[in-house]
């Protein structure tokens, strides 16, 4: 291909792409600043930030996000490690399992959760605490494709076997190997998975709504029903948060296969 020819066709499509991305964002920003007729103001943002319900929902979802990250790391890290080290033959089956949340849409999933855990013998939905446990488990499952994949990719880039053998020859048991040797080397992969998981939990609607817990998603939806400008402000804030999380992720994983990190596939 000649090196100095400018491909106008390509340029056009790139510009169209940029437009499609930015117009709705700009429109939302503009709309969110017009709560007071005739001039730009941060009124909509102020109202939202002062709303105690907003603060409670945000706190709830943030805490849930952190819990989800910790629990999924605690479950998936040893799993990925074990598969790499001892049970490579299980990998295809496990990979299919991690893809299940893609095959079962969230609305169907919550349907199943309610049917199973909304009645004896596994009744969990009677108490707020029980429901919180259920919703946390649900979040972990929803985050599974991303978290597992992030850890798997990270694990592949370090020589697990040699590190383990070196640590064992120095007297470490399995737990110590995981925490002292493997974990520090997977910091970036773990952080990447954590960021995606956190962003996902913050924006999640269905589980929070149908299991009737005060998450940010249902709060936003309710806002959308009765208000005009506050939803736009909420959308901008939500977008900014996602942007920060995923921007951090991009920054941390620069150079590696970003596609897999971001799509989980």
């Amino acid at each position, binding site marked *: 291909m000649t090196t100095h020819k400018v491909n106008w066709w390509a340029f056009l499509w790139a510009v169209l792409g940029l437009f499609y991305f930015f117009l709705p964002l700009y429109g939302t920003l503009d709309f969110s600043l017009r709560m007071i007729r005739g001039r730009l103001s941060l009124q909509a943002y102020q109202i939202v930030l002062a709303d105690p319900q907003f603060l409670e929902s945000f706190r709830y979802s943030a805490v849930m996000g952190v819990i989800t990250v910790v629990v999924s790391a605690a479950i998936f890290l040893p799993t990925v490690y074990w598969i790499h080290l001892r049970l490579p033959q299980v990998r295809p089956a496990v990979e299919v399992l991690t893809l299940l949340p893609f095959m079962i849409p969230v609305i169907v999933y919550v349907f199943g959760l309610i049917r199973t855990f909304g009645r004896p013998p596994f009744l969990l939905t009677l108490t707020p605490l029980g429901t919180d446990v259920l919703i946390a488990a649900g979040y972990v499952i929803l985050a599974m494709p991303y978290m597992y994949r992030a850890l798997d990719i990270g694990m592949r880039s370090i020589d697990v076997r040699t590190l383990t053998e070196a640590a064992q020859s120095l007297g470490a048991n399995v737990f110590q190997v995981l925490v002292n040797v493997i974990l520090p080397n997977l910091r970036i992969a773990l952080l990447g998975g954590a960021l995606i998981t956190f962003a996902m939990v913050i924006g999640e609607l269905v589980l929070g709504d149908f299991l009737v817990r005060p998450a940010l998603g249902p709060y936003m939806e309710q806002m959308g029903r009765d208000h005009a400008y506050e939803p736009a402000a909420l959308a901008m804030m939500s*977008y900014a948060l996602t942007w920060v999380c995923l921007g951090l992720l991009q920054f941390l994983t620069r150079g590696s296969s970003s596609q897999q990190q971001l799509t989980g596939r």
Partner: protein
Amino acid sequence: MAGSALAPSTERTRALRLGAWTKWLGIAPFFVFVLAFEILPSLNLFVGAFQDQDGRFTLANFLGLLDHFVLKSYMVSLQVSVITSVVGGLFGFMVAYAITVGQAPRWMRSILMTFSGLAANFGGVPLAFAFIATLGHTGFLTAIFRSLCFTNSAGVQNCPLDLYQNGFNLYTLTGLTLSYTYFQFPLMVLIIAPALESLRSEWREAAENLGASGAQYWRDVALPVLWPSLLGATLLLFASAFGAFATAEALTGGSIPLATILVSQQIRGDVLGNPNEGYAVAFGMVVIMSLCIALYIFLQQRTARWLKR
């Protein structure tokens, strides 16, 4: 004598067998968790699809799927999914082409790749709000278009781009399609851009060298090599749209019949009059999406063969 000769070997076998078992212990937590919180609820649902109100095995629930109301939901879901996956897919392909093979300026490429990563995950409720703020009755773009008026020769004010006057409505299928495309085309960009980059430039040069034009190269080499990737990505887009719920509900409040909306209504209050039929609807959805994902995986592996560097 014989006993002592036997003892070491049985001990060793017992130790070995124990070792084999402990090997599986490492992934037990994972399996237990997934079993409890993914497989169990799902299976429970699917079993319910095959049962009647008294718990007996029946296929009658699936006949209920042919009911006009349910069928319409499926059809509309399929329609939206096909349209957005094809339109979003094509648009995404062109954008991906622009930033890889097409050699658009570097800065455009970085921005588009970064934002594709962001937008592909930016769905749900905020997306609906963003589009309402942009194309709703009093949206940003709507207002701009409405203000592009001029007075014609008869002295009458004419506003050709007044969207809502001309019949456009964000809260319809059209609006939903537009909103879905917002996360569909970035997903396509993310999946297809690496595949496009793996197209070796020597192939194009070799084709040119043998007399082929750009179009012939695409027809004979590039597209045949890419089509598994393209098809797989489109399937993924299809599944993504088919299972989407939050945006649809936040945007239309459930007024558009979609399979996901139907399931949500069924959960909230048995609109179908038969809970088992609701399970059947859910089961049908899962079958469709599983097929898509399975095909996608199969096609990805085919692509990997040819595009391995």
